[in-house]
């Protein structure tokens, strides 16, 4: 088994198995979606007009929650030191961590997103597009959020700090995804895919620099 596949297996089992895996994020997602009709009012027309956007925003928030343990636990128990000395470059280690995070938490959320949107009254025809946007967006959120998690290593009040760092960076994907949902695909979907590809390619560099800085 190559070091890379071994690392991937480890990260996947960690993010799937420990701390309930995708369950807390899914529960949070369901909770936020339940709160929305309580806050806005139960009128179907009003709910339907905001449903896809709210389902999308709740996804971005749910993706934030699980970021804190992306690096923090490995940082505290010294595993991150070992990984930085290992044969796999640190950039790739960070990318693998984010990828495992996406598979274990992002994809289950992406499957839940159309259900939440339909329950709020979005048209059924929109469901595949919502799932696609959510899967792409969750990948972008995992990688951009990983930068926040790596930068906040070794700080006080990690969780809140990650949210403050990452939310301004989430503005473009939130806009593109929301645009794709209102326009039924088109330019918004392409822009979202482009932003996601750029985040996947570039953010490991920033993550590795931040992790090296924290380990020094």
């Amino acid at each position, binding site marked *: 088994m190559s070091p890379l596949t071994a690392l991937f297996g480890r990260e996947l089992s960690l993010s799937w198995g420990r701390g309930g895996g995708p369950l807390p994020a899914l529960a949070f997602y369901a909770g936020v979606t339940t709160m929305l009709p309580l806050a806005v009012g139960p009128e179907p027309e009003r709910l339907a007009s905001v449903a896809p956007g709210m389902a999308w925003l709740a996804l971005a928030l749910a993706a934030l929650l699980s970021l804190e343990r992306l690096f923090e636990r490995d940082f505290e128990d010294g595993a991150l030191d070992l990984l930085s000395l290992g044969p796999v470059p640190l950039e790739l280690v960070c990318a693998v961590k984010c990828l495992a995070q996406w598979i274990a938490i992002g994809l289950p959320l992406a499957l839940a997103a159309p259900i939440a949107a339909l329950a709020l009254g979005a048209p059924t025809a929109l469901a595949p597009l919502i799932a696609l946007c959510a899967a792409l967006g969750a990948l972008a959120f995992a990688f951009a959020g990983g*930068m926040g998690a790596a*930068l*906040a290593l*070794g*700080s*006080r*009040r990690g969780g809140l*700090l990650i949210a*403050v*760092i990452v*939310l*301004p*960076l989430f*503005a*473009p994907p939130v*806009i*593109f995804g*929301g*645009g794709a949902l*209102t*326009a039924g695909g088109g*330019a*918004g979907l392409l*822009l979202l895919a482009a*932003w996601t590809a750029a985040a996947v390619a*570039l953010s490991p560099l*920033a993550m590795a*620099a*931040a992790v090296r*800085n*924290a380990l*020094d």
Partner: protein
Amino acid sequence: MFAFLANPQRFMAFSKVAAPLIGATAFLLLASGLWLTFSAPDDYQQGATVRMMFIHVPAAWLALFSYVCLAVASFLSLVFRHALADAAAKACAPLGATFTALALITGALWGQPMWGTWWVWDARLTSMLVLLLLWLAYIALRSAIDDETKAGRAAAILALVGAINLPIIHYSVVWWNTLHEGSSSFMKNTGSSHYLAPLALMALGYTAAFGSLWLVRIRAELYRRRASLLALRAAEA
């Protein structure tokens, strides 16, 4: 210029003279700019409120300019591990956040009589608001890490990530705004020299004020570091 000032001692000697000189220049520029602002004729559409332009537009320009300064200083501190560049980045952040907040506040005060509302989700306003969030994230990250060199490097990485993202954020917000049929747009009065001269003077004055305050804050930061170093040595002895 950079190489000459990279030496902290030469920087201290230079900034000791330069900071008050630039500050005095800023005062003269702002005073004459304000004089022209109030002696300019009322606009035929906006009336007296056109004068808000002269304090609002330079603030918006400096909000962006100071972020460029932060990005350059962060790059220099990250690549060359230069302590002075790190102090410059640290000193820049509250100034930039203040200019961004000033641009938003004066924009709201100008928007109320002109558009009839304090705030519209217009492309410029929204991207300015995201810029303010970026400044706050920078300051929050910097203050959350105890080790100063680590805090400086993490913050520098964030500043560069933000610098790459800033144009993307801007264009995404513009695209979002056209998608949602933005309701308001600026009525530009160009070509009138009544307005050009005070605007130019105020822009130069704001820039000089920023430069002077930045130098003063870098000096204060260097003195603070020296003081904490001395305190540490005294505690060890």
